[in-house]
């Protein structure tokens, strides 16, 4: 009997072991790093992309190059390859150089994402597409935003 009473006196809340928390949060970090990709290009360029409902995701293996086309406010169209402004006449050469910089077996994964303002007209887009054809960069993706329903 005495033995049992002594035990009850020693009863105390154990303190929480906080040492596991950094490990758990590190796991979360790895989860986020694995499941997401680093934002490239410039998302705040004032380009309002068109809306669409049947969207496809660009392949994870793809080497994505962003071509942004927008108006400069004075009625002229400006073209950016990633973040560099490129005149239309140079576009084929720039894209040829980009294609040549990849390993030969990686070239099929070169994808151009066309981020075009929805108020642009098709003329300049066709010119860009012709330039891409001459550079043998054939996979394109018309970037679009999901439609709100």
């Amino acid at each position, binding site marked *: 009997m005495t033995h049992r009473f002594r035990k009850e006196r020693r009863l105390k809340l154990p303190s929480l072991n906080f040492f596991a928390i950094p490990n758990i949060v590190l796991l979360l970090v790895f989860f986020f790093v694995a499941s997401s990709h680093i934002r490239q290009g410039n998302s705040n360029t004032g380009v309002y992309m068109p809306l669409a409902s049947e969207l496809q*995701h660009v392949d994870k293996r793809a080497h994505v190059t962003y071509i942004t086309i927008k108006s400069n406010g004075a009625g002229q169209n400006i073209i950016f390859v990633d973040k560099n402004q490129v005149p239309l006449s140079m576009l084929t050469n720039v894209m040829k150089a980009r294609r040549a910089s990849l390993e030969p077996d990686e070239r099929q994964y070169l994808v151009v994402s066309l981020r075009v303002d929805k108020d642009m007209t098709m003329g300049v887009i066709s010119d860009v597409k012709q330039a*891409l054809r001459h550079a043998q960069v054939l996979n*394109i993706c018309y970037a*679009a935003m999901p439609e709100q329903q």
Partner: protein
Amino acid sequence: MRLKRSHRLPGIDALSTANIVFLVMLFFIVLCSTNADTGIERRLPPAIDADNKPEKIAPRNLLCVYITSNDELYCNGRLTAFGDLRAFVKRFVDNPSNNPGLPEKSKVALPEFGVQYITDKHVISVQCERNTKYQAYIDVQNELNAAYNDLRNELALRTWSKNFDNLTESQQLAVCQYYPIHISEAEPFLKGGRQ
């Protein structure tokens, strides 16, 4: 005895590492986005030169969708309402009644399905004017995608009573081969869209 006790190393306060790692995590969440680039994927044809001539397409296999600068839509030269485009494209791609005015069907051995008659020679060509609005062009491309997705979904429901998204990978591949997407990006301003 007392000296010996003071030799014990003091424990490192590991609680602050939790805060530090939380900061690292927030940094990554801000920097990264889980939704990858979305859009409508297309493949351009190679540039036309001496040794790369475009193929001749039989008139019955070609659907020419022409968008004017006023956002009017012409399918093979006939004025079409935007709402009718999807049904028109579905009938063109599927050709359920083997109509001689619609794309010809050829005998193809497919995985999962076996030998089937499919319209693997059809081509949909989207053409427009220089002043056509990009949003109108994307609307049409979106509607074409929707037509193919509808057909694939209907086939999946018919065959396995499941939605296309719920099929196994090999089944999805087979369905995609049953209704292959042939949308031409060539010759954007070809005449003949409006006859």
